[in-house]
């Protein structure tokens, strides 16, 4: 029943943050960040399990590992970018949060560049010169 633990941590830290916010907003922000990291670490084992299962399945079925690597990179980039952006957004820096998200989007797009180039080159070869 890990979900209860996660929700418990979330509720407790929310109450603490509400109390702290009146006195020391700085510490409230730190507590929020720490709670976020804690829940993330709590889940990272499960995420790892899912990813290793996917990897095993892909390996046994002879799928190209480069595809799987790309997919994992997408997941990682989006999770990390989302996490950082939310922390910054909690601190009230909306503009920096959106920049972090932009960085995440750009980095995901960069992953697509080699794939796009290969597809385009193939299509160009298909067309008569």
């Amino acid at each position, binding site marked *: 029943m890990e979900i209860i633990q996660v929700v418990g941590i979330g509720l407790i830290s929310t109450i603490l943050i509400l109390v702290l916010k009146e006195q020391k907003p700085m510490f409230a922000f730190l507590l929020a960040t720490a709670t976020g990291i804690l829940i993330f670490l709590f889940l990272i084992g499960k995420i790892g399990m899912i990813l290793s299962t996917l990897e095993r399945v892909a390996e046994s*079925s002879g799928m190209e590992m*480069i595809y799987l690597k790309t997919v994992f990179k*997408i997941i990682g980039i*989006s*999770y990390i970018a*989302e996490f950082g952006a939310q922390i910054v957004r909690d601190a009230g820096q909306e503009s920096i949060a959106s920049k972090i*998200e932009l960085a995440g989007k750009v980095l995901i797009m960069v992953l*697509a560049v*080699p794939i796009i180039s290969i597809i385009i080159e*193939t299509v160009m070869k298909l067309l008569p010169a």
Partner: protein
Amino acid sequence: MSWLGDWLREIILVVLLASFVELLLPSKSMERYARLVLSLLILLTMLSPIVSLLKGDAIAELSLAMGRQEKEGGLFTGGGSGDPSLEKILADGQKLAQGRQDQSLKLAAEEVAEQMREQIISETGKRGVNVTVTLGMGKSGGSGNEDIPVISAVKVSMSLTTANPTGVSGTSSSVAAPPIAIAPIEPVEVKIGANPENGSASADEPKAVNGNVTEDNTSTNETESIVKLLEQKWDLDPEVIQVDGGGVNNVKL
């Protein structure tokens, strides 16, 4: 027909993976971008027979491009992961410095060999003297721990014929070789030229037996004078000097 089965299986797996990953994504804002990459992957999988037909090994190219991307890294990472790359850079730097040192030692050895040759020629009036100087790095005598270049071997080979008038070869080799703890100077070897009857320089064969006895005395004298000359002018240890002469007598001091 097995390639068809493989192809179908790959497509099914990639589609399953894509739909699974889409659920795993954290937020809506990233979803569109992730979906684009995933759909490109599916497209590439579906096109893979055509791609491999037209372009060869597309997967290898893809992984190469990905690896290059990974290596380039971001603005702040300094090109990849920190420590190993730093080590690599340092190792590269050391290698470059070593190469430069080798090169400068070689140049210096050539210069020294040329000067020695000039001196020997002016002193003995002999042509066709071949001087080879080997420089090594050694500890400087007193003060610092700095490595300084020392003459670790001098090899003089002479031929009575002038077959090889421009025979100066300064070769500095094996700088990293053991003799590091050697003080300023070491062996000199002087070989005295070829057999006059043969008329050819056989400096490379110090044990040639076809010599004549009459040459012996003069050759020995010359050898000694050369060794003395080098000893005085270059402040060398006689052990460092090796003189090969005349194919007959091979004086090693």
